[in-house]
């Protein structure tokens, strides 16, 4: 029997009204209204820092709201902790999965709600329920006894979703679920999401990839500066319209590209092979040029950049940076005026507990260090890149993802490198910061710097790069001018469907 709200409309599965939350002096949420119906996928979009994660933490009971009401199937909903939220049927699938790597699939799925007989686990029932959950997700082939560490990232994600449906969840929240998945896995995930939707779940889908959000969702809600600023049916709204709602202005020129001229060659990679990846990669890079490397996850793009930079061993092949040939080490590469932006900001790119100044100047310290000039140098980049922070001595951990990425990039700028190796330079950052980084790349190329850039986001590569090379199974042979190719063709090459053409 459908429930009704006081004004006569059919009751939504989940409704949030006027939710507000402040942390000290910071207003994180300033009036958010949101609803999602049973059998519906709602895309929640917004820049980093717009309040998506705070909102989801409130929904999952990790924070409690200062003001506002929440209703789950018409009943007041105000979870005291994540456990209560889970019991009421609200499940979260975070970007970083919260699973125990050394336990089996079964144990993970039933963790915290194991069927017991006295102090003993009822193993047969546990296995049956786990196998049942995986079968519902279209993967009955995953052995419930296998330990989670042996599964791929995509499979682990399904296990986590399996855990949610096993408790009989009513609202499923997916936070950036595709950020580290391959195309095939994304397809499979979307199929499962559609099936769950047909079974009457309400699904909230959070993503930076607007195309994906468009494809999977029925409606969307945009958050900006802690407020819900708009929304509507996805099918009838143009992407550009959604973006302008997100940034509060229209982004006409997301990918600026000035007239650039390629100069002398500064990097030449010949038949490079690493331990397992890359297998055989050749690429050249000139001053004033942006070259993109496309490919699937696992194709060896990151390994290629790391091998060039001396972070991974080279088995055979040759790398020439300007006039230097010879063994590579990061120290040597920095001295040769080459810098690498890591794809993994948290674990490699930045020392999160150190200050902005320390992170920024680490490659370029003289024997004696003057903290005052460290701070002055940092202030210059903070201003130039518009980093939002309190001071250069603030720990990098406190910054938002986009601002962290700007600091990681500023390290290369401060070192004044000539060759930029950028690995996923816009991963996990908001549209505004993305646009800024694209402008910066263009500006650098115009000043005669050379940029080699890996990205999984094809529109970005096509928009920013002069040439694009496609890597497939560790091989990279040739590149084509960006205006002579398209997404379709790149995907064909990346999946190996088209060997040479």
């Amino acid at each position, binding site marked *: 029997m459908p429930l009704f709200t006081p004004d006569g409309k059919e009751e939504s599965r989940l409704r949030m009204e006027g939710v507000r939350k402040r942390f000290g002096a910071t207003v994180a949420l300033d009036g958010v209204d949101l609803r999602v119906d049973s059998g519906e996928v709602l895309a929640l979009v917004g820049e980093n820092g717009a309040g998506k994660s705070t909102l989801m933490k409130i929904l999952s009971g990790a924070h409690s709201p200062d003001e506002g009401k929440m209703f789950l199937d018409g009943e007041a909903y105000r979870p005291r902790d994540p456990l209560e939220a889970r019991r009421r049927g609200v499940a979260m699938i975070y970007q970083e999965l919260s699973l125990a790597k050394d336990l089996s699939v079964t144990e993970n799925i039933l963790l915290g709600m194991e069927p017991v007989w006295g102090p003993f686990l009822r193993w047969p029932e546990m296995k049956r329920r786990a196998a049942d959950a995986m079968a519902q997700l279209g993967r009955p082939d995953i052995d419930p006894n296998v330990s989670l560490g042996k599964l791929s990232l995509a499979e682990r994600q399904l296990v986590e979703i399996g855990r949610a449906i096993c408790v009989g969840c009513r609202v499923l929240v997916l936070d950036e679920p595709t950020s580290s998945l391959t195309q095939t896995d994304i397809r499979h995930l979307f199929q499962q999401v559609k099936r769950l939707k047909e079974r009457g779940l309400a699904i909230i889908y959070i993503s930076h990839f607007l195309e994906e959000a468009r494809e999977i969702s029925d409606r969307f809600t945009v958050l900006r500066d802690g407020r819900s600023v708009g929304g509507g049916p996805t099918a009838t709204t143009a992407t550009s319209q959604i973006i302008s709602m997100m940034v509060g202005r229209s982004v006409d020129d997301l990918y600026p590209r000035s007239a650039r001229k390629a100069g002398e060659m500064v990097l030449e990679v010949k038949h490079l092979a690493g331990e397992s990846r890359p297998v055989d990669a050749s690429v050249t890079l000139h001053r004033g040029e942006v070259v993109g490397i496309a490919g699937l996850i696992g194709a060896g793009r990151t390994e290629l950049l790391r091998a060039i930079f001396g972070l991974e061993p080279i088995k055979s092949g040759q790398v020439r940076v300007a006039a230097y040939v010879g063994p590579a080490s990061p120290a040597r590469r920095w001295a040769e005026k080459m810098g690498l932006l890591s794809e993994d900001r948290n674990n490699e790119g*930045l020392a999160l507990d150190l200050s902005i100044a320390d992170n920024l100047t*680490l490659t370029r310290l003289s024997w004696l260090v003057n903290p005052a000039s460290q701070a002055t140098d940092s202030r210059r980049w903070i201003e130039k890149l518009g980093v939002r922070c309190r001071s250069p001595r603030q720990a990098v951990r*406190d910054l938002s993802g986009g601002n962290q990425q700007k600091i990681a990039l500023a390290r290369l700028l401060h070192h*004044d490198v000539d060759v930029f190796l950028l690995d996923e330079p816009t991963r996990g950052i908001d549209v505004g910061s993305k646009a800024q980084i694209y402008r910066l790349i263009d500006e650098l190329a115009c000043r005669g710097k050379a940029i080699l850039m890996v990205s999984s986001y094809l529109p970005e590569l096509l928009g920013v790069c002069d040439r694009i090379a496609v890597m497939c199974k560790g091989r990279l042979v040739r590149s084509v001018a960006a205006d002579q190719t398209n997404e379709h063709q790149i995907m064909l090459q990346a999946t190996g469907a088209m060997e040479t053409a």
Partner: protein
Amino acid sequence: MTTSPTQSPSPVSQKNARWGSSAEDFSAFLGTMGPIAGLFFVVASFAVLEPRTFLTLDNFQIILLNTAVVGTAALGATVIIISGGIDLSVGSNIALCTVVIALCRLHGLSPTAAALLGIAAGACVGLVIGTLVTWFNISSFIVTLGLWGAVRGLAKRLAGGSEISTPRSWISHLLQMLPPGQRWMLLPPGVWLLLVLSLLVAGVLRYTRFGRRVFAIGSNEQTARLCGVPVARTKLMIFIFATVFAGIAGVLQFSYLNNLGDPTTASGYELNVIAAVVIGGASLSGGKGNVFGTLVGALLMTVVGNGCSKVPRLTNADQDIVTGAIIVAAAAFDQFRQSRARAK
């Protein structure tokens, strides 16, 4: 640097920067205030409980004397712990140094040469630790757990199983109560030495590339590697640098023991040293720590020991309990402060 800022700072960002740096200062201030407040509390408690025996100039001199050895060793340990490592062999190392100094003296070397060789012996232990940690990629916890026993054994073997007493020399005066004629020095020379060395280590940590790299490695070794820091070489240097301070602590201990080379001395000091560093605000997971905090931590430990011995009702056992409670309280306070800073 060829680029110049494209725009002059806006008034807002300038204001934010000023407000912000005071916020950073305040957080750092709280970080150092914790241990100091603890120290004041403990001193005040004992001053109230036993004003006549605790609150004397002589007793304060004794407290400082007792702090010098652990304090000096803790300077080195601060550097190691900031880099994310640990040294459990420091007590054994101090004992080894006293034995080496004593043996050198017995073989007719000058006190200065003997002291330098003692310090060199300490540094050799650091070289061994650093080599094992970097070449074989074993955690410093395991390496120094092994050396904790091995170095102690080596000291015993060198000493032939007994203490070695040696004639008096200038070393004797380092860490003894000042004779009446030298009151103008205010503090025993060994305590002055600790203060000078503290300034030196604080300066190295803050104003040298080596020091900043220590923080970088401790905070995120991968980042350090990415940024071209020679991680292995730097780690080796860290252990040698730190064990030089263990060596100097050995010289002070030799003086404190009245020119005795004692292979069983300083046993358990490694825990006092680590506790001092942790009370001072360092994190065992690396990336954080400061010399001033370490000194306060070392002092706090000695004051507790000294004060408990002055209160008749308190026994050795109570002293252990109080010390343990302080260590846990310090760590809990630090955690609380951090979680508050993060929630902002």
